[in-house]
């Protein structure tokens, strides 16, 4: 479970990434294609748009994790709910883009590597651990979204008893 301390580490380390976001995205894709050259054709030739999407998604993740426990009752619109968004993303990755499940490991490695390079000394063991935990959680969620028997249909709402 993501602890409060881990959430804070994610938030504070992300703040340091934001000003160098484009560089971090560069590093990530360089590392990913180094580890898995066969993934390069899965992306468009001009990868700039993809880099921006990556940063936006990570910013969304950080933002979504950043709420006080006291706000647990708040209603979040379904298109901004981290769980639903990530489930849908997992489904898209699997069905639309044909990304295999074994892609999550090298992707995580590339992400951690890029953050390490980008943050330098600020990438402490605790920060590494927090990001690893978050990534593992997101990857598991995406896989669950891709394996869902029923569509991860946000409109499927059961009336409360």
């Amino acid at each position, binding site marked *: *479970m993501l*602890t409060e301390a881990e959430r804070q580490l994610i938030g504070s380390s*992300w*703040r*340091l990434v*934001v*000003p*160098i976001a*484009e*560089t971090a995205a*560069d*590093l990530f894709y360089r*590392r990913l294609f*180094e*580890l898995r050259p066969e993934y390069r054709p899965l992306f468009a030739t001009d990868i700039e748009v993809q880099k921006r999407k990556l940063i936006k998604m990570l910013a969304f993740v950080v933002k979504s994790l*950043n*709420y006080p*426990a006291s*706000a*647990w*009752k*708040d*209603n*979040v619109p379904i298109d901004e709910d*981290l*769980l639903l968004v*990530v*489930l849908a993303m997992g489904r898209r990755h699997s069905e639309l883009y044909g990304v295999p*499940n074994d892609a*999550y*490991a*090298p992707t*995580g*490695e590339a992400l951690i*590597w890029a953050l390490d*390079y980008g943050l*330098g*000394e*600020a990438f*402490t063991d605790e920060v*590494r*651990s927090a990001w*690893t*935990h978050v*990534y*593992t*959680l*997101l990857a*598991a969620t995406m896989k*669950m*979204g891709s394996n*869902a*028997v*029923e569509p*991860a249909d*946000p409109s*499927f*709402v*059961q*009336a409360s008893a």
Partner: protein
Amino acid sequence: MLRGTFEEHALRDVLEIVSIGRQYVGVEVSSAQGESGVIYVKGGQVVSADALDLTGLPAFRSLFSARFEKFRVFRMTTPAALPIPLGSLPTLLLDVSTERPEALAPGPTAAPVEGGHPRRPSQQLTMAPPTLEPVEPKAQPASALEFDATAAHPIAVSAVAPMPKPTSATAYLPVPESSKSSRPPGSEVPVRSTLSSASAVVMAANSDNARHGHVLAVASPKGGAGKTTIALNLALSLARRGLRVVLIDGDVNGDILSSINARQRSVGGAYDALASGADPADLLLKTSLATLSILPAVGAALPDLALLSQDTSASWRSLFDRLLTNADLLVVDTPAGMFGATHSILTAASHVVGVLQAESVANRSFEMFARSLDAMAAAKRPAVAGVVLNMLQAAQSASLAVMQDAFNNLPGEWLFDVSIPRNSVFLTASYEGLPLGMLDEANPPAATYLFDLLASEVADRLQLTKPATRAPRAFLL
């Protein structure tokens, strides 16, 4: 929404996944015998649980029994009234993991276990961090998300993944030796973005100017953010701490004198001194506070406006130097925007305070604060003393959103703890032509103290406060 079996995903893992969202969700578990129960979660809290004839925590715990085989996750409309939750999910899961499953439920089919739930090792998914194996370019690494099934506590996620080590056939960039080291020598990290690390911007004092003394520019990309108000009240608070402060109006439009309703008092100002090289000390206006003087921007006559499109940094630098012979700190109000005359002032200043108005348009424009500083040569760039959120309206979500955004997106060291609220007292002060603290000196408005706090933070960050020379006294007698 989702369904599966506990062979693929343990219940705690399903709950952990569900808890990254904030919808009101039911996780129903069922057994081959047709027994079922539901755990209701929202926003990381376990709201309630129902199982057979149990409710609450006993129900929650019982649903981790080995006899449940399948799960189904569904979203629900949030009820109008939510009960007090059973507890946060992390806490409750910790509670469950310390109990042996046989003790949880009298199910006759509970298989013998080793202190954990029975699992099929080949398909286990737990939340331990991925093992990042060293990768050979051609080799197949182990899938990072299969874990040792005998791991005692799947929620013990504090183990740190080992660093990937380069192999002899390394084809990739050099890898940092440890997470704490800076980049290895010889590694090339192309910085393609227009922003370099803002942390470097914060701490790197303007090496040209640092030795000269403290010059604090107050700047904001967007106009109307409240620079002048902040500069005026901050200068007063700093002066009240005993620092000799000169408040300089760097904006030809002369808003400082407008704030104190004294436009007619100026016989000449900074821009005249810039043009003629005259001693700015002769142009200072004294205030009722011995430690605070004001240098207006202009007098009755406008300066040569060509001055405004030139790089006047060197002239500002000598003007600052002359004033610093009799002052501890200069506070400079700048024209709106980060370019033009403001750029010249920033180049000559040692520090800058950014003013972020808690309003959406200002928020979007604020990216220019870091970008413009980054575009300056490192030796000429002022250090960022901090960013203050201004005109915050706590009752307006659009205004609070700016604050939230700032916490999320600005470097942590930048934001001051103090934020200045929107308040009608500022209108009153402008009307009266006085800084807040002078409206009623015996009983100043509360916002005055916010500026005192801001001044404290500024003094700390600029290291203007001397550390205590005595040991603290004993407290209790």
